[in-house]
């Protein structure tokens, strides 16, 4: 069986859900082979990758972590030459898309991003125009390179897991000379909440929260979800910019999206309209968000949200 190459920048245990999803898709279409951007993996990572079907791990001969994109794409191109996979899969984060893009040029192969499902012959279903269209696309030249959105598949452990073999692959010498690099990294204050793009529940606030995100956060925490915000709320400085959902922020596709105090203009809709279930709370009955809500409450978010939060806690205890 031909192999399917999965690139995971720096996998850690437990494996993230997107990592497990990529392995699941790879194993369904061939022998899953993983390439990583670090010269050695921590204890337990090889076992964890094996558990989701990885048969081999390709490691670079040098640390690539401090570099951006180009040297990683160069390393991956070498792996593709050695392994001759039938496809290369990456996650849909911006750096992975950029690695995929550069890899595509290096190996003369078509690249498809924003993939939501992978079919026979690596036909890709992708979301277009911020999720308002679903398109079926195919790579017609070279080895398909696909970047896959989170929540595309249910992770499936391998029936017959093996401990993957670790293979060292020489990094091209040219790759790092002119590369962009990270010279300093400051960690933001750690959050106990799941990341916005991977969360299965997102609770988002907008202009209507008027500077006070506490009721949004309380409901998010009761549901084990992430906190999102409209551009108005992040521009006003009520919450960090990275919480922005919309065309100029994150595009999310959770099981449940609760929108509170957000009118739901096209700019915001573009970031959340592919959510499975949408709940909206807004004072204004004419808010466009109600047109796409599965359940809407015309009311004050400062009474509705705390009541819901309390009720959830009560039913769960």
């Amino acid at each position: 069986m031909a192999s399917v190459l999965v690139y995971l920048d720096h996998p850690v245990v437990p494996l993230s859900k997107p990592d497990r999803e990529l392995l699941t898709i790879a194993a369904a279409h061939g022998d899953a082979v993983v390439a990583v951007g670090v010269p050695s993996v921590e204890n337990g990572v090889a076992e964890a990758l094996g558990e989701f079907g990885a048969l081999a791990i390709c490691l670079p001969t040098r640390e690539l972590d401090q570099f951006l994109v180009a040297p990683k794409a160069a390393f991956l191109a070498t792996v593709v030459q050695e392994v001759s996979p039938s496809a290369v899969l990456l996650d849909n984060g911006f750096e992975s898309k950029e690695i995929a893009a550069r890899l595509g040029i290096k190996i003369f192969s078509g690249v498809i991003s924003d993939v939501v499902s992978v079919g026979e012959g690596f036909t890709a279903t992708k979301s277009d125009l911020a999720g308002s269209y679903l398109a079926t696309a195919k790579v017609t030249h070279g080895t398909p390179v696909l970047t896959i959105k989170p929540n595309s598949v249910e992770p499936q452990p391998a029936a017959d897991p093996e401990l993957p073999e670790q293979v060292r692959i020489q990094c091209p010498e040219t790759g790092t000379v002119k590369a962009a690099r990270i010279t300093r990294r400051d960690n933001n204050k750690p959050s106990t909440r799941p990341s916005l793009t991977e969360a299965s529940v997102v609770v988002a606030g907008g202009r209507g929260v008027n500077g006070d995100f506490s009721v949004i956060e309380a409901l998010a925490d009761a549901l084990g979800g992430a906190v999102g915000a409209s551009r108005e709320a992040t521009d006003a400085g009520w919450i960090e910019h990275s919480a922005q959902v919309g065309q100029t922020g994150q595009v999310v596709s959770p099981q449940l999206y609760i929108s509170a105090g957000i009118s739901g203009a096209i700019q915001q809709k573009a970031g959340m309209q592919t959510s499975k279930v949408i709940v909206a709370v807004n004072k204004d009955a004419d808010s466009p968000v109600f047109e796409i809500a599965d359940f809407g409450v015309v009311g004050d978010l400062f009474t509705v949200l705390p009541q819901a939060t309390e009720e959830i806690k009560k039913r769960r205890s």
Partner: protein
Amino acid sequence: MHTAAEAPLNIVVLVKHVPDTQFDRSLTDENFTVDRSESILSELDEYALEAALQLVEAAGGKSSGGKVTAVTMGPDQAVNAVKKALQIGAHEGFHLNDAALAGSDAAGTSLALAALIRYIAGDDGVDLVITGMASTDGETSLVPAQVAERLDLPQVTFVSSAEITYDGDAPVLRARREGATHTDVLEAPLPALVSVTDQINEPRYPDFRSIIAAKKKPLHVVTLADLGVDASAVGFAGAWTTVDSAQPRAPREQGVIIMDEGDAGIQLVDFLESQKLL
């Protein structure tokens, strides 16, 4: 494409005409390309243009020989994005207009843009290629990375600040990128490709004088033949991907809307429970 430290700063900004996001957008029935009949300069490109203008101003402005060139590719109406960029302050414009470009995917688009940038660079070189954080239409975000790859440039993307410093004589771009879990300081030797977010600046608006002045600025329309690019390498013919079908996602049906009469929070939780979301 290298330039010496004391040489004037030469920046190319990639701009794009996109469907106005205030209106619903659609794909054409024929070949699933974006309908651009109601197009404007991508709002996100205005930040790129502003960043370029500020960098050139910081380096001594136009009198120092620094230059911002706005470039685009596409059919006739694409030129509007370049015209708007000239009004805002770009010094020169290029429009790559060639029927053979229709249907280009990221590989073809990046091939044509890379050729155009090389053409503009000529003997003087280009120090920076700046783009917006995404195009507000196709959103593949593959094109800037592929342009960088084809020109063998390092890329520094999604930055919220950017300045040029010197490592000895060698110009270095230093930028800041704010992520969800961490903030990075990034560095790349010039020439480089940079994409900027909407947090980097407040784009200026063209005033009456700059609109009039823009009419006198050089705007060049070039074809693939001018760039020495074979027509079969781009467009549908040169694409490495194909879109077989595209359907508008079924419109979301409006669900239940209730007025809060004191128990809406409870009803909301009932709904979540009925959807097995608790």
